[in-house]
């Protein structure tokens, strides 16, 4: 006997009427289909109990600092973590940068990068690439930071975001994710200088509000130490719209 079409089984689990008496008769005598149906029904049940307003709650921003500051965490992690990831309004870009360069030149990472650099040129975009016997990821995550809305833009108070800095054979890569409702326009990612005025555009976020960008080689990251995400209207202007959705420190 042939089993019930898996797509039909899924619809039955959702409460749709089975097409014809055949399916019902089959279910009564086929343990396999009955088992599958039970499993799917339990998924549907959990989903309906969870409700459609079941979105996860983010922990309050300060909580990460409490985790990072815990003695066991500090002891286990060394200096990179102790200060580097704490989300704060204006984390010290300079301190972060002093750590950034040595990490990039760390012998192990550099060796891996050297071995494979020639192999993956042109393969850009992959987050983590394993080559042959090498177990270490070619792309090394250097740090993450949280992006937060600014008080002067109350319309974005529910927005949040994160940034991950990675080293890759091609240079520094910055991954940015923003959680915000879509607005009339598109999101653009900028590096913001300490003077709060000068900016370098890295590029636009995609439909899922994420993007991965090459940090232009030679950028003075001591000066361009912050990330800004703007909402840009479709007006053809390449200048920053002056509407900042979220902002945060460049991860170190």
């Amino acid at each position, binding site marked *: 006997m042939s089993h019930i079409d898996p*797509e039909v089984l*899924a*619809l039955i689990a959702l409460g749709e009427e089975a097409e014809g008496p055949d399916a019902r008769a089959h279910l009564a005598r086929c343990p396999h289909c009955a088992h599958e149906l039970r499993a799917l029904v339990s998924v549907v049940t959990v989903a309906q109990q969870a409700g459609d307003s079941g979105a996860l709650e983010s922990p309050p921003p300060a909580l*990460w600092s*409490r985790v990072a500051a*815990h003695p066991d*965490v500090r002891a286990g992690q060394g200096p990179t973590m102790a200060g580097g990831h704490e989300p704060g309004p204006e984390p010290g870009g300079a301190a972060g940068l002093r750590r950034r360069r040595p990490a990039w030149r760390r012998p192990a990472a550099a060796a891996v990068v050297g071995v494979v650099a020639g192999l993956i040129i042109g393969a850009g975009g992959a*987050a983590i690439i394993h080559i042959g016997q090498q177990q270490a990821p070619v792309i090394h995550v250097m*740090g993450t930071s949280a992006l937060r809305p600014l008080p002067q833009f109350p319309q974005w108070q529910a927005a949040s975001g994160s940034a991950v800095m990675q080293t890759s054979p091609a240079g520094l890569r910055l991954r940015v994710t923003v959680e915000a409702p879509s607005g009339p326009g598109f999101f653009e990612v900028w590096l913001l200088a300490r003077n709060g005025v000068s900016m370098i*555009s890295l590029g636009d976020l995609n439909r899922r509000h994420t993007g991965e960008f090459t940090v232009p080689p030679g950028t003075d990251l001591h000066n361009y130490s912050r990330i800004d995400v703007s909402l840009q209207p479709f007006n053809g202007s390449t200048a920053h719209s002056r509407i900042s959705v979220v902002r945060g420190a460049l991860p170190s």
Partner: protein
Amino acid sequence: MIGRKDSAAEDAAGPGGAVTAAVMERSSDGDLAAVFQKGRPEALALAYERYGALVYTIARRSLGEAADAEDVTQQVFVSAWRGRDSFDPERGGLAAWLTAITRNKVTDVFRSRQREAGALRAAVGQQAASGQATAVDQVIDRVVLSDELARLGEPQRLIITLAFYTDLTHDQIARTLRLPVGTVKSHIRRSLLRLRTRLEADGVSH
């Protein structure tokens, strides 16, 4: 303009609820687990970015009090880090491990609340404790499911949401969204399977 239009192609990391969703690709779950176990410095931060909301939401919905949920969340990540040597990525993912630790910490809070409630009610307390454990398990399953739902791409998430929470049948959903019926059916099946796989991996009542 320097380096514009350099966005990488995206895959399964959905746009949904948690900030955690797209910090790393779905496909690098195993990599995160591996660097975590090895004690790589950035691993805890990444694990927190990715699963902080999961842990916090389970704690918050089980315990009610935000302050208790914050304490539990801190304890979970600190214990996970402290015990990373005992974490075996072969046996289950990082999310499943963190969920199990969360469950223990939440249960600890219930016990201490009962102690505070006094010995007079100890007998009733025993019964209440087992009821609470069941309730925690239900919360975990619901939160894990919501998390996976948020990680579905579009239109999958919209389709399955309509299937779950409205009375629309699959062909009504297809008409509403102007999608072929076959597409809707296949998305429904695949999304259900994906949710089932995640629940079986990280949930507790399966």
